[in-house]
């Protein structure tokens, strides 16, 4: 668990972070969003003491981080950044094994851990272990960056726009992988991004910052439905907010049991989002879809009315 209590950071006369308070629970993915220079990266880097905070307190698992030696603290916290920061003169395997070696793990255990992580991130050992970072594609390099951050099995992971420099397709693929990984590993993750779709798709808790302060925080749906002010509303997509909400709401939430009426021809998977269901209706020129499970068996149906109207007030109450 990470707790920030009225944390402040000044650079000269400028206040970069102004008395922010924030709690990230164990196993939660917290996304910091905001315009450039709003203090989100500074906040992230104060957590592993790459930047020292001037005021307030930061606690990790109940202990103030100032009690730890900076290096010891950083070895306990995974760290992944946009430029990957891979060492160009080290092979992939050596890069991933960096923190375990800093922690003086025996060599055999480091090798074992590196191979385990490469498998976890879909990097075949025999193909990638001896490659150098310059020989990797952007997506592969970023996977290695994430593997390196996870190497010593830290409870906490800090990620500073880790997918920011990738093309949209690679980025989406890695987002899906990160979500699957997080479902398995249950790390406490603080994630800085300026890509709102990425934040909405990944975050359990969304924190909107502006000029060093937190404007609003909460679950993505809460923020989408009740933005605190015009800034949050426009940051979350302005008039597109409804569609963004549809993009993070699964079909099952608005699904109704199969009616006695004729089953619709067009079908949509149970795991799909309302956004995808809408797109399907638009494409097929229909108002009803059959919802199917993995075996393509109908389990319910969803209607345009169900998506846009009937469920909404109900959804708010929940």
């Amino acid at each position, binding site marked *: 668990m990470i707790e920030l209590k009225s944390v402040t950071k000044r650079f000269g006369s400028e206040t970069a972070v102004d008395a922010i308070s924030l709690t990230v629970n164990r196993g939660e993915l917290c996304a910091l969003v905001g315009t450039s220079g709003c203090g989100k990266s500074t906040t992230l880097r104060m957590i592993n003491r*790459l930047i020292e905070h001037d005021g307030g307190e930061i606690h990790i698992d109940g202990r103030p981080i100032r009690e730890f030696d900076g290096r010891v603290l950083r*070895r306990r916290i995974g760290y992944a950044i946009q430029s990957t920061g891979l060492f160009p003169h080290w092979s992939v395997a050596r890069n991933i094994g960096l923190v375990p070696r800093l922690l003086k793990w025996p060599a055999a255990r480091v090798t074992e851990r590196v191979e385990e992580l490469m498998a976890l991130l879909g990097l075949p050992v025999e193909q990638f272990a001896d490659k150098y970072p*310059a*020989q990797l594609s952007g997506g592969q390099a970023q996977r290695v960056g994430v593997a390196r951050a996870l190497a010593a099995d830290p409870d906490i992971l800090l990620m500073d726009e880790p997918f920011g420099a990738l093309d949209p397709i690679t980025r989406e693929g890695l987002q899906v992988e990160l979500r699957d990984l997080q479902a398995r590993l249950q790390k406490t993750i603080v994630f800085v991004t300026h890509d709102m779709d990425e934040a909405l798709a990944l975050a359990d808790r969304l924190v909107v910052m502006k000029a060093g302060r937190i404007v609003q925080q909460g679950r993505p749906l809460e923020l989408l439905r009740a933005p605190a002010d015009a800034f949050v509303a426009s940051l979350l997509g302005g008039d597109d907010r409804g569609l963004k909400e549809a993009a993070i709401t699964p079909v099952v939430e608005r699904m109704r049991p199969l009616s006695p009426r004729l089953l619709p021809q067009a079908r949509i998977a149970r795991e799909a989002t309302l956004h995808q269901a809408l797109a399907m209706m638009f494409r097929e020129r229909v108002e009803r879809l059959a919802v199917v499970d993995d075996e393509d068996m109908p389990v319910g149906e969803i209607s345009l009315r169900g998506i846009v109207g009937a469920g909404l007030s109900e959804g708010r109450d929940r």
Partner: protein
Amino acid sequence: MPGREAPVNRVVPTLAVTALVTWLWLPLGSIAPNRIVPGDAYLLAQAVGWSLAMVSCLPLLGLLAVAWRPTRSGYRVALALTLLLLAALPFWLALMAQQHLDPELPQARVGIGAAWWLMLFWLSLLLIELRTRLALAGWRLALSLVPVLAGWWLAGKGLESLALRQELAGREEAFGEALVQHLLLVGGAVGMSLLLGAAIALAMRQSPRVERLGFALLNFLQTIPSLALFGLLLAPLAWLSARFDWLSALGVSGIGWAPAFLALLGYSLLPMVRNTFVALSGVEPGVLEAARGMGMSRGQVFRQVRLPLALPVVLEGVRITTVQAIGLTAVAALIGAGGLGTFIFQGLGQAAMDLVLLGALPILAMALAVDALLGALTRRLDHRAGQTTGTIE
């Protein structure tokens, strides 16, 4: 091979034709009865006879034929022909000496002519061109030069009358000493400037004020002409050695190795400091941030990340400095520092060009060798750092 004929190579025939022309119509060498009298120039045909001259041109014609239809095996043949021509070069001089030198005159000597030097130059260019075409690794090229060197050594036995050798005769000891002195001065100055330069570069990274001051000073030093710097050092060093006995016991005085060493050091510092400073500052910030973010200590970041990544650029500085120092040391002979420059200035004074060559050729060879060796080392390190993506398979 119909269908996929490679385009006609223009470099090889151009070089071959040029070589043919200069080889036949410029003097191959000259023969002089002694050191003072200017020699008589001989064209190739006059020196070895028409028939042999024609034979010597056959490999060049072969090169022309190969260039017409350039294939990989064609280029290999061309490489073999070029190496053959190179290996044969000294034999033509030996042949000329054998046929035209008067055995009654022990002082008679063979001078090397324009055709010979130019042929060496054209053949070197051909080697470079063929190496690129065949994508030969450096060590394989070096290996293929071994038979050439063997040929030269063999031919050298029949060339006691070569003017260069005549100048060397009786000076073997002085030549050895000069060579060692030259190497010592260069090695000492470069080694010292590496240590001192690294220290200065590190100090500069600590404070921008030191950086500005340091670069201003080193830039100023670089603008003083070398002869002037030797002169400027004369007075203070003479005074110091007169004042402190232990300095004069070390051999420090207004002239000699001490001012030469100091001047070389001064000139070497700028490229060394600049390259070291740029190398250390030029490491990608994201890499350093990640290193720190992973929990490396400052020392670990420096030793394991910053230094290895900076090393190729630092070595580049050593290369530039060393090549520069090899040349500058020649001038240091003027203030009695010894070294190969001694022969150059002696030769200039006596109007004996072959003596000048005796000093200049080893300097040239040294500079080329250092350049090639350190360049190869730098590329190797760069390669390991993965910065040259294209060459890693």
